């Protein structure tokens, strides 16, 4: 695969409720920041991929709200409805096709404008599952319990993820929930659906992010500080929860295998310097770490206990604070990519991981991480 560069990134601050901003305002802010970061004008953007979700926005053509704000006027544009990492993947394809030299990918979401439970209930099949009243939290609880029971991962080990990530968020000016908490705090927080407690769960968030992709040729001409996409993979497994073994993540393994194959990575734990993965719930960071090959199956609990995924550890995971610290749906995956870019450029300020040369960004889609997208980046 020819190299694609990320040459500009922009994020808004993630907040519980951005009352003064419309979707378009947030996108304009993120896009403007990305253009500034890349020292580019909107005219130099060849095409645009927006990322939004009709349910979350309450609009059946959710992309319509941001067509002006993302600079799509008189440009080729498309819209991915799924996590931001999939938007980056599609934006890449459009450049690799030879049709465009640069792609702007911009995602937005306002969790504050509706009720998450109703919206995520919408992802359940209307015939067999919708009426049961499942939502993202209760379905993830089913996965958490199955995973933790099968592999002997404890709630305390899971809680450590939350402690680490909220703690890391103190170094991230964009994060919504920087917090200094302990395992005891997490264990004492209100139970939502066993075993997921309030502090095990990501918040409701508003925000937007944008990244600018460029072909190798274009990047060489205009980029100040390009970061290269070395490998990418995406894959979805079965849909009905009962058709899956929720303690396993075969689609993540497949996506990671593809991305690692392209990037020439054979030992991910050794070769990746920093990872931003989708911890919508604390147990997910453990499970996805296994699927990504950072440790063996069932070893996620031991991994967090080892300290190796802390800021000063061998492979810091979620130095930004992760999704637990800010969860604007769909944007969160794009934010993972943006954070990796900052890390590789040595521009991550207080959350900088030393000597970061290879990074991994990860996003999920569908119930209990049914679908995954893995992106490997390097300097």
């Amino acid at each position: 695969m020819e190299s694609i560069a990320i040459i500009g990134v922009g994020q808004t601050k993630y907040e519980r409720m951005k009352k003064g901003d419309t979707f378009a305002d947030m996108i304009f802010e993120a896009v403007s920041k990305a253009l500034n970061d890349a020292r580019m004008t909107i005219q130099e953007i060849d095409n645009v991929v927006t990322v939004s979700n009709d349910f979350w926005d309450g609009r059946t053509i959710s992309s319509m709200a941001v067509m002006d704000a993302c600079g799509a006027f008189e440009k080729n544009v498309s819209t991915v409805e799924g996590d931001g990492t999939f938007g980056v993947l599609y934006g890449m394809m459009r450049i690799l096709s030879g049709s465009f030299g640069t792609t702007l990918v911009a995602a937005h979401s306002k969790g504050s404008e509706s009720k998450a439970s109703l919206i995520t209930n919408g992802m359940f099949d209307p015939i067999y599952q919708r009426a049961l009243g499942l939502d993202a939290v209760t379905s993830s609880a089913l996965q958490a319990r199955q995973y933790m029971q099968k592999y002997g991962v404890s709630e305390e080990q899971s809680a450590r993820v939350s402690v680490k990530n909220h703690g890391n968020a103190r170094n991230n000016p964009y994060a919504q929930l920087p917090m200094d908490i302990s395992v005891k705090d997490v264990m004492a927080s209100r139970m939502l659906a066993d075993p997921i407690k309030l502090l095990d769960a990501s918040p409701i968030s508003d925000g937007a992010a944008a990244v600018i992709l460029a072909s190798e040729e274009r990047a060489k001409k205009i980029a100040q500080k390009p970061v290269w996409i070395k490998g990418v993979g995406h894959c979805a497994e079965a849909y009905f929860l009962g058709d899956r073994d929720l303690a396993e993540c075969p689609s993540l393994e497949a996506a990671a295998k593809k991305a690692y194959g392209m990037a020439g990575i054979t030992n991910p734990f050794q070769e990746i310097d920093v990872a931003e993965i989708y911890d919508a719930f604390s147990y997910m960071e453990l499970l996805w770490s296994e699927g990504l090959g950072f440790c063996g199956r069932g070893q996620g609990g031991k991994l967090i206990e080892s300290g190796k995924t802390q800021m000063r550890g061998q492979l810091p995971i979620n130095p930004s604070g992760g999704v637990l610290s800010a969860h604007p749906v769909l944007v969160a995956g794009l934010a993972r990519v943006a954070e990796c870019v900052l890390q590789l450029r040595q521009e991550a300020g207080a959350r900088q991981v030393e000597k970061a040369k290879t990074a991994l960004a990860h996003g999920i889609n569908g119930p209990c991480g049914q679908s995954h997208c893995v992106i490997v980046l390097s300097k």
Partner: protein
Amino acid sequence: MGKRVAIVGTGQTYHKSARLDVNGMELINEAVTRALEDARLTIKDIDAIVIGNMDHFEGINYVDTWSVDGSGGFMKPILKVTTGGTTGTTVAMAGYYHAASGLFDTVLAIGWEKNSESDTTGAIITAFDPIWDRPAFAGAVAGLAVEASVYMHQYGVTEKDAARVSVRDRKHATNNPHAHLKGEITVEDVLRSPMLSYPVKLLDMCPRTDGACAVIFASEGRAEKITDKPAWVWATATRHNYVYIGDWEPTAGLKTLESASKEVYRKVGIREPLKEIDVMELYLPYSFAGLSWIESLGLCKKGGAPRLLWDGVTDMGGELPINPSGGVISSNPIGATGLIRVAEAATQIRGKADKRQVPDVKVALATGFGGCFWSDIMILGKEKKL
């Protein structure tokens, strides 16, 4: 950088106003199975899937992950794209870009809609901005009616002229076993049909339909191994310019289509579309579009379209047949509609259009429409070219 891409197989359902015998996953599966049969492939040969529909019509969130049993997405790369009425062509372009990128050799693109499952107007109204446009606005028809009025005012085009478009498309549909509406109608029938929003009457307007379409794209090297009749994608363009209805400029013609067509004509080297293109499958959601929008495509000057219609230029047997499939006025499963235009254009090039085949098709054009006066366009050719 980049590979040339061809369409190597297509499949559609037999479109109906309500397919009560199947749920959404099963509807999708019908189209996918037919496309695989057409291409003589199995699901194992598919490297990636892209799917699209308009969420609020079926009320299902994250359709890419929900659909896997029907779409064949189990343990495969799958993603969803959606852009309102243009979704079908957006899906086609996504299928094209997946293959052109070189990352995936054989790509399955699926567009579908089960409009019977919801109140179409209730759902479509949510497309418009809730604070500025939605309170005053009324579904899809009103915007089109306003456009039609402007066109009639500027060029003296009549309701009778528009009716001729419906008559043409409905007549063409009689050759298409997949079409939803299968009866011929007359100009009188159209003029006497109930007024929806002046000057748009019931028979000027497209129906709402349950249906699905699947198209298989393959990159060069792979395409030629799959079929000896590939339809090559030559160029695509998109213009999704407007956000608020009031942003649209009230003059005749579809500016986004004009702009998009100029881009693809330039890429392909077309100067006289009427002469150089052999068949068109256009997303005409209502009759007046069949007049003003073909002017925007450069087939004739502004105000000149009625002449083309009445002279039979766009009928089967004419110089440039438009909508041999019967078009959107005959079948409208919204998320699939744009993809069906592409599938039909490809089928024409591949010589597989049976009774609706236009003879000797070398160049075909397909368009998509939706959102706030947005346009998509794709040109396909028999030769690999470019």
